[in-house]
């Protein structure tokens, strides 16, 4: 028996979210009294693969097959399920990231496994029963889901754990899953990455602003604060709807869900649909002129004040803090 982590690579590098999945798998293996192994599809150096050991993975099964260069949910599901079956995994752990969200349910069907999507904490394991908590109702409540199937699949919500990096290295073994060319039905035509900024859904720190900023010309200070902090920028829907900011920055019920360590909301009222996308952030700071703004109810720290005065001061103070 073992716990199998799926680690996704992009351009030869293991994704940050996959290191978290690996760590989650290792911790789950500890609870189950077994070891954690990982499967990697596509090209990556041995050094990169071995680095999974720092998060508790003992062995990496590597399918170094060029056909896996791009994510294909159907072919990947076959390969990951085969790995689970061949290497005796009773629990498969993936990240609940964009690819994992599609891959995990496919793997669950292939393995006829109970699947817990978006687990936010380590599971509780009692005999054959596994229980894990996840946020439901857009973060307004939590549900504990349980499954007792022989095999189980868990997808861990990004930024749920703070993985602790150790010093181990994993051994690497070649793996040749039985996938045929016909299993690959997805061809990547183009990739449009936002360059120069931190990807929003992966960011640890997010600086976000809303209609309180009055106009797109006033975003300079938000971008400067984000740049100083190494944060991603986000916005409310009200602002992307009128094209003050690009759509890929809009967070909330109809936009992205983010879960950073720190979410700074400037001039955003805190409508329930906005909160749905951000209320799982670890710490929320709200800057708003209106002391009655609903966002303060979801905030950890608040400043009642004018963004045009507070944000420049915050940039200055942050610079001082960094220099100290």
């Amino acid at each position, binding site marked *: 028996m073992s716990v199998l982590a799926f680690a996704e690579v992009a351009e030869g590098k293991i994704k940050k979210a996959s290191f978290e999945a690996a760590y989650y798998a290792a911790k789950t293996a500890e609870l189950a009294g077994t070891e954690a192994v990982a499967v990697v599809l596509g090209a990556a150096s041995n050094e990169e693969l071995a680095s999974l050991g720092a998060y508790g993975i003992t062995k990496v099964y590597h399918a170094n097959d060029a056909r896996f260069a791009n994510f294909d949910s159907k072919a990947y599901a076959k390969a990951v399920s085969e790995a689970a079956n061949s290497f005796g995994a009773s629990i498969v752990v993936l990240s609940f990231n964009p690819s994992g969200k599609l891959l995990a349910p496919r793997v669950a069907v292939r393995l006829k496994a109970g699947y817990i999507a978006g687990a936010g904490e380590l599971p509780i394991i009692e005999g054959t029963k596994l229980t894990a908590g996840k946020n439901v*109702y857009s973060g307004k409540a939590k549900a504990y889901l349980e499954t007792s199937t022989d095999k189980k699949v868990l997808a861990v919500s990004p930024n749920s754990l703070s993985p602790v990096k150790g010093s181990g290295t994993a051994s690497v073994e070649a793996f040749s899953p039985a996938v045929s060319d016909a299993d690959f039905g997805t061809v*990547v035509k183009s990739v449009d990455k936002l360059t120069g900024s931190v*990807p929003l859904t992966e960011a640890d720190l997010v600086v976000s602003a809303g209609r309180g900023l009055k106009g797109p010309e006033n975003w300079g200070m938000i971008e400067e604060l984000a740049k100083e902090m190494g944060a991603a920028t986000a916005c409310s829907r009200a602002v992307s709807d009128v094209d003050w900011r690009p759509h890929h920055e809009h967070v909330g019920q109809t936009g992205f869900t983010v879960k950073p360590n720190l979410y700074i909301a400037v001039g955003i009222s805190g409508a329930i649909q906005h909160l749905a996308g951000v209320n799982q952030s670890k710490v929320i700071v709200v800057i708003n002129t209106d002391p009655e703004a609903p966002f303060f109810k979801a905030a950890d720290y608040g400043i009642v004040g004018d963004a045009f005065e507070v944000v420049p001061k915050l940039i200055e103070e942050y610079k001082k803090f960094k220099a100290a």
Partner: protein
Amino acid sequence: MKILVPISKVPDTTSKIAFTDNNSKFSTDNVQFIMNPTDEWYALTKAIELKEQQGGEVVVINVGLAENEQIIRKALAIGADSAVRVDFDAADAYQVAEEIASYAKTGGFDLIITGKETIDFNSFQVGGMVAEFLDWNAVSLASVLTVEGNKANVTRDIEGGTETVEITLPAVVGATKDLAQARIPNMKGIMSARTKPLTVVVPTSSGALTKVASFELPSKAKECKYVQADNVGELVRLLHEEAKVI
């Protein structure tokens, strides 16, 4: 082109969330139910747009009891041609997906368009499961979808950007925002919805694989700590020393 759109019923976002029976059941008191927003605004309307461009048929399917017919009628009013309801109070997504897949097998569909996730369980699994039951290609988080012959071009969200892929049909596509322009049912649609076919199908699925052990509400509202606007340095100190996030 024949398109199947699975639609689900969820509590309106502004509903107060509460639980009964020792925190084991969602309390439906004073809760208004709606069609899951991404299903209605993006999945269904994209299917209708494709049909308008290329001809074909749009069928909506819901796995649920008779009380769900209210949202099914709305989908017909928006423009679906016919509807199927699998008369089953499914216990998990696996059962829902099994029902949808077994119906899809009977119908000669080219495309299934789901919403990305439901806003109650936020579990994002039915689409992927349906694809696996059918052994079809799938793409989720789709914000652009065009179809030409048996190929679809889909733009999907990835970390920090988007990616455009070509997939061979039949396929399952999971809709996210901007896939289509939301539509409001008009009078003609509402009238014609009454006479469009709604077939009730008996369930065939096997047992559920997961269950909800219990629910929990956040223990208490967060206590906001205020910092004076002329003392911003204090905020930086708190974020570093107390919250330890910078």
